[in-house]
């Protein structure tokens, strides 16, 4: 089935739009953050010396700030850093490209699964300007590349279903495994998604089971190093830092409620108000918080780095479209309809396991089912043949888009200056005048300033590998470096030398 010419043009235009929005000023806006600098510098360090900043050779998890970042994205950045040198573009380009590719993928997915090109085009268009997807495509966010692999894997699964080729099945498993190498939350989401897909296609898969054993065996082999690295590399420390238990709210709640009895340790208070029950309830509350209209449309995430001011993760006009879309989806008789529902229910699972919810970053894969519903809603309206409504939707989208770009490019950094502090001027000064001073202390609002200094000064990796010394982890499990070479960070009181504010 080939595309008609006009549809090719439309698809091209959508991809062009997606690319323009994801690549425009990518190197400079927003300024590089500490995680991205860590990705860039560690890849560069690997290129130069074969070891990361802590002297670990070719790790699967990068120790970085003691948070053991999953390694796949580092290795994607690596070739760019090798040929292009250490720059913001090199760190961000893979994510942006995968964002653009995801837009194309949803079109292909709709075409493959439902043989519906129009739906695919609408879906791609909606995803291309989705504030949620744009936000995390513009920057070295591992979450976004994991989403790409999950989408690609899902596409390969359905390709396998139609072609019955083992090759496609291997691609499916391989992509899902790659997603697990890329991002923490994918490690929970992908297995559940696989189980779900397996459940809904059990008859088909059982018929083919003989051919599938070999690829499955291979993917398990492929995942073994990940499992070892994960268990070795402070995985439990990371989880206790940002996991569900890091939120002490339910514990206090249990104590408070128990304290209201004459005897807090009697059987009834113990049975009703214990931390196990309260933490389970907390899990479900966090899970469902991702479906809250306020999160989706009004205020978005809690963390300034993952949110835009005065808007949610979706456009305002999508309030209505989402409702219409869910309604049409409930009524539709499409085959493979379960896919979207499954994805919708699975996506917030990992995010619900952490201390802070709703989180737009950790539940990024929700953007796929939600934009699907919006697209489905638009298609439902198109089918109802109310032509004026198309016009109205377009006008609303135009306004929403302008609103987004105003919020993103004009208001964002001014409203949350500490979310993306710009280190570049500091780096410039250090390069130009830093030589004149023997000791330099950098104060200020920067998060992990040491890595930004390393990144922008292109500090020799051999040197830092010897000098690096992490502080003990804070309450969330993050460490930092207070001092290396002639640079000191943070507390400059009583410092003898040049102080930068």
């Amino acid at each position, binding site marked *: 089935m080939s595309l008609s010419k006009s549809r090719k043009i439309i698809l091209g235009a959508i991809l062009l739009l997606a690319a323009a929005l994801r690549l425009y000023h990518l190197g400079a806006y927003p300024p590089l953050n500490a995680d991205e600098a860590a990705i860039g510098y560690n890849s560069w360090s690997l290129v130069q010396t074969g070891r990361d900043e802590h002297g670990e050779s070719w790790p699967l998890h990068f120790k970085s700030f003691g948070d053991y970042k999953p390694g796949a994205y580092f290795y994607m950045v690596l070739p760019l850093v090798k040929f292009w040198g250490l720059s913001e573009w090199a760190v961000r380009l893979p994510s942006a490209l995968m964002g653009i590719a995801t837009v194309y993928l949803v079109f292909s997915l709709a075409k493959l699964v439902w043989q519906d090109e129009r739906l695919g085009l609408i879906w791609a268009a909606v995803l291309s300007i989705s504030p949620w997807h744009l936000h995390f495509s513009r920057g070295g966010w591992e979450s976004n590349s994991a989403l790409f692999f999950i989408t690609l894997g899902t596409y390969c699964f359905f390709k396998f279903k139609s072609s019955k080729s083992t090759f496609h099945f291997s691609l499916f498993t391989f992509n899902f495994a790659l997603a697990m190498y890329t991002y923490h939350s994918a490690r929970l989401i992908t297995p559940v998604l696989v189980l779900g897909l397996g459940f809904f296609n059990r008859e088909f898969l059982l018929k083919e089971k003989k051919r599938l054993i070999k690829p499955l065996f291979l993917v398990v082999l492929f995942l073994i190093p990940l499992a070892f690295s994960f268990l070795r590399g402070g995985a439990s420390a990371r989880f206790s830092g940002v996991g569900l238990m890091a939120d002490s709210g339910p514990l206090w709640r249990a104590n408070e409620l128990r304290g209201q009895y004459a005897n807090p340790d009697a059987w009834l208070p113990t049975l009703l108000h214990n931390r196990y029950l309260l933490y389970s309830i907390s899990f479900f*509350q966090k899970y469902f918080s991702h479906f809250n209209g306020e999160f989706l449309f009004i205020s978005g995430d809690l963390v300034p780095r993952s949110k835009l001011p005065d808007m949610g993760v979706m456009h305002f006009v999508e309030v209505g479209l989402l409702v219409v879309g869910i309604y049409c989806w409930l009524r539709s008789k499409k085959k493979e309809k379960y896919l979207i529902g499954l994805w919708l229910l699975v996506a917030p699972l990992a995010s619900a396991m952490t201390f802070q919810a709703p989180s737009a970053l950790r539940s990024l894969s929700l953007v796929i089912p939600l934009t699907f519903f919006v697209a489905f809603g638009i298609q439902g309206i198109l089918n109802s043949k109310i032509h004026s409504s198309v016009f109205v939707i377009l006008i609303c989208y135009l306004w929403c888009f302008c609103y987004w770009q105003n919020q993103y490019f004009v208001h964002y950094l001014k409203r949350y200056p500490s979310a993306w502090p710009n280190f570049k001027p500091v780096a410039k000064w250090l390069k130009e005048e830093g030589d004149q001073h023997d000791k330099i202390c950098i104060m200020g609002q920067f998060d992990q300033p040491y890595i930004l200094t390393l990144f922008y000064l292109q500090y020799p990796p051999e040197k830092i590998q010897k000098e690096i010394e992490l502080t003990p982890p804070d309450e969330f499990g993050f460490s930092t470096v207070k001092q290396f070479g002639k640079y000191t960070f943070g507390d400059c009181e009583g410092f003898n030398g040049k102080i930068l504010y």
Partner: protein
Amino acid sequence: MTKKSRLALAVLIAVGFLLRVWRVGSYPPLLWDEASLGYNAFSILKTGKDEYGNFLPLIFKSFGDYKPGLYIYLVIPFIKLLGLTELAVRLPGVILGSLTPLVLFWFVKEVLKKEKLSFFSALALAFLPWHIHFSRGGWEANAMVFFLVLGSWLFVKNSSKLFIVHCSLFIFLLALWTYQGAKMMVPLILGGLVFFLWPVLKKQTKVITTLRLPIVMSCVMLLLMGVWFYQSFTGPARNRPKAMSLFSHQRPAEEIKSLLAEDNQFEKNFHFFVFHGEWLHYTRCFLTRYFNHFSPRFLAFEGDWASPRHSAPYFGMIGHLNFLLFLFGLGLFLREKRSRKENLFVYWLLIAPLPAALSRDIISGVRSLFMVIPLAFFIGYGLNWLLKKQNKFFFLGIVFFLILDLAYHQNLYFEHMVKRRPKDWLYGYKETIGLVKEKQDGFEKVVISDFYGQPYIYYLFYTQYSPEKYQRQANLNENQFGDVGKVEKIDNFLFRPISWETDIQKEDILMVASSEEVLRSSLIRGQEVYSQLVPLAEINKQPMFYTNEFKQE
């Protein structure tokens, strides 16, 4: 209806009644509004006039919030029977609340003609924590919900009988007279009924137009409603909706200034209007509130987080499993093919949070109370489907967990709700007023702190103060912002903040201070403040009040 189903329904209503009436005379503590409703009813009963000496008013001035009066008239017979007690004030609410599931049963049966589904809807409502909570007290909103469902049922029921249509309009008129929020709900519901039942009504209009008198009657009813609206938007009561409205709270000037600064603008211009205009601000405020009422946080996990008086702590308005069942039922309902009139329930679900979403509070469990009806319907729909399509054991398992969830709610409600927030629940007024009444002799003045709000009404209520005597001296200092006012003096009783310089040393003043005031002054004056005072009304190891007297006990 078979005998068996009638019996089941009777048992259901009886159990629902038990849940609502259990300990209702003593728990939770009486709230300001309930005390005011009770005392005004008492005053009408004794003198025919309200606390301010107005003869049989339709709208009661009360604290300056101008309460629609029907609930007060409903309380009068109970006060006649039981005297001025908490139970008497609350019984009308308990009874109307217990009967609402029955009326919902009739209504659903009339619209959908499915008896099992109607039964499950009634079941869900009878055991819905949200509805139980507001049935246990003199909440006017709860009475309104009853009248709205009753009116809708009569409207749907065989509309060709004009007498019944008139009854229905009359009931809607009563609903208007019960609660402020009804001014929005009644037109919305009446309009909805006409719209969704239009195919049915159209046939009947032919019958109706042949008769002149009924049309005149209907017009009179609608005219009365119009007069009511006119009055409430022009009379002294008009400030109340205005003070409560979302639109009377403007953005702070600093916010506008910082937005302009971010845009590098100096004054509001077209760009500002398009991207940051008031229209957008109010839309966002409205949507936030509207979404809040459908949020899992509100329905399943935390309840009304703006007011601890509206729900049990750490528990949603409908509970965890009910929330899932609601989503499930709604999904099933939308999936199926429906007739026009069946969509009424979806419409109700969508309009029910509107009065709350248009008011200033970020969330309100009482203004959105009508949501219980559509919620109960969809929960019932889910249950009904499960019973029909699933294995009996699975269904029984669900019911078992529903009961556990309700039991958990009851534990939080009875054991923790007041203990956790005694100040919000106004714990201690009853005990304190009782003690003061005993000990007041020999004091020239009694000063009671107004820290918790409206102490005068508790004084009137718990001392059964003679209404004739009060009417002569009633003087409400009205609040200039349209919120509730204050009464500062009855005889030698003063209701005002404690002033530590003058009140505490004098021998002839009996003083009752709130624990907060004592805490604050002890921070300034040191710990010896405590040694001079006697704690009163202890709850959860904390006293609510302190007094300077009766140390000998």
